[in-house]
């Protein structure tokens, strides 16, 4: 009998901690999302209003604006990061001494705090003395006078570039480990058959990378939807509300306007969006669909 219980004793501490620090708050915030609660007015939860907070979101133009921004931000970040990291991985996965050193230090950008990166970008994009601003102005003179964080489009570009920069090394390392684990014989056989580099890339390398590409897309979509630090440190959602992605919009609703019920409801909507994405990817992963 004691032996039978042993496995549960081992699991119990983790179970208790997860219930206390994750499950309980999640259920609690769902409960809060069904109430009208302005923390500025009262420390007690307001009246029960059912799903009104969720319905309110659908007629809230700020919410839709934020959804739209989230889609643009996520799509461009995920596509850019994945494409670039496959290219970087192809470049760095060769068997050369100097590349192996580069592979070692590649992890460094990933270890940096996203908050610090966000602040640094603001420094380097400064129109008066920023390094990036100067370099871009030197390379592409027509862009010399752009105030990067001053207009909607350029601020979004800046934000995407930060998130791409943060995740590119990690994603590249994932692809590198995939590429270096591939059997050499396949490539040798392809070369013998006279396949060009591009043919090898599209007909052998990429199909073989497919499982990693899918995992990377899931992870990258999740990370991008959850991105928060770079937005706070770089743009604060601005100028106006042009970079106000959902995650930041929820934070603002909750901790600047203290509209707890609405903020929780928005949080659950974002969670739902994330889960839908993950399920779509997962089904592809399980079924092993063609990857285009």
């Amino acid at each position, binding site marked *: 009998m004691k032996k039978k219980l042993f*496995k*549960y004793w*081992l*699991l119990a*501490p*983790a179970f208790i*901690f*997860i219930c206390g620090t*994750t499950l309980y*708050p999640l259920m609690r*915030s769902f409960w*809060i999302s069904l109430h009208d609660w302005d923390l500025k007015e009262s*420390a007690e939860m307001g009246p029960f209003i059912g799903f009104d907070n969720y319905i309110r979101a659908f007629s809230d133009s700020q919410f839709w604006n934020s959804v739209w921004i989230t889609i643009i931000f996520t799509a461009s970040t995920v596509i850019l990061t994945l494409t670039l990291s496959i290219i970087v991985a192809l*470049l760095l996965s060769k068997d050369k001494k100097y590349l192996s050193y580069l592979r*070692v*230090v*590649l*992890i*460094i*950008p*990933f*270890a*940096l*705090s*996203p*908050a*610090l990166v966000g*602040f*640094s*970008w*603001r*420094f380097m994009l400064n129109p*008066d*003395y920023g*390094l990036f601003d100067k370099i871009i102005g030197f390379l592409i003179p027509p862009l010399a006078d752009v105030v990067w964080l001053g207009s909607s489009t350029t601020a979004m570009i800046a934000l995407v570039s930060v998130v791409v*920069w943060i995740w*590119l*090394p990690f994603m590249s390392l*994932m692809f590198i*480990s995939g590429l270096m684990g591939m059997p050499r014989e396949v490539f040798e056989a392809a070369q013998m058959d006279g396949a060009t*580099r591009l043919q090898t890339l599209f007909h052998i390398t990429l199909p073989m990378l497919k499982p*990693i590409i899918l*995992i990377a897309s899931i992870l990258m979509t*999740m990370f991008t939807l*959850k991105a*928060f*630090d770079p937005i*706070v*440190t770089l743009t604060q959602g601005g100028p106006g509300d042009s970079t106000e992605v959902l995650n930041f919009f*929820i*934070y603002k609703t*909750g901790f600047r306007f203290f509209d707890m019920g609405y*903020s*929780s409801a928005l*949080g*659950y909507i*974002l*969670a739902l969006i994330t*889960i839908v994405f*993950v399920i779509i990817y997962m089904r592809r992963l399980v079924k092993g669909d063609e990857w285009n």
Partner: protein
Amino acid sequence: MELMSRGAALPQKKKLISKKTMSILEVLCVILVAIFLFLPIFWIVITAFKPESEVYTTSLFFQATLDNFKTVFGSAFDLGKYYTNSIIVVLFTLIITIPVSVLASYSLSRFQMRGKQVFMFAILATQFIPLVVNVIPFFIMFRNWGIIDTTLALIIVNLGHTIPYAIWLTKGFIDRIPVDMEEAATIDGANRLQVLWHILLPLAKPGIITATVFCFVITWNEFMFALVLTQQDAVTLPVALSFFNGEKGVLWNQMAAAGIVFVLPTVVFMLLVRKQFILGMTSGGVK
């Protein structure tokens, strides 16, 4: 035969040239990637050693100084305090997370249990939910308990984030350790806990190290919880960086100095366990 080989030699030469240009092109691309990834870091490092008069220029030639580091650790900014806060939060989070998760993953990996798959999926699913949703009830609870702006509050919230990750990472590792040795030890009369301590732990060490470093990095860099739950006393390093927004504008040289001291531990740890880390992340995911 001879004719054929001579005929083949010509296009081969052409191919060789194009191969050379290709490899030069490749090297150029590699350099471009390296610049893109490391120029910002280089610039932060440079800025940290600049005297104030040089910060607002892009000059590379200046009298390097350690003044910025002295200033940020001085009484006016007191980086030491925030550093201590960060260390306390990370230390206690890890001390709780790692043993708890290792025991749980051992149990999940080695025993049949009803609802095991559901449990594993549930803890993964909680990670899909944006952290803001977690913070709202905690913020209210902690306000009622009067522990807003304490490191205790941050430790509690961080645990909800680190334990699920750590279980996923270590379980993947333990799954791949063959059970034979544990069975042999059990036959020799060792009890379950002895088996766990003397046989499994040494074998699972790479997995445990990976999980520890991963949890270290996410807790050390954690920003949102600290932003919401701290104001002054318990502020950790990532939020402390925003304190350099002074009346005179942002003091970039000091922020860079503080930033370097802040990221140093994560960079060092990451470099030390890089190989195991990538292995753990990818194999855990692909499986």
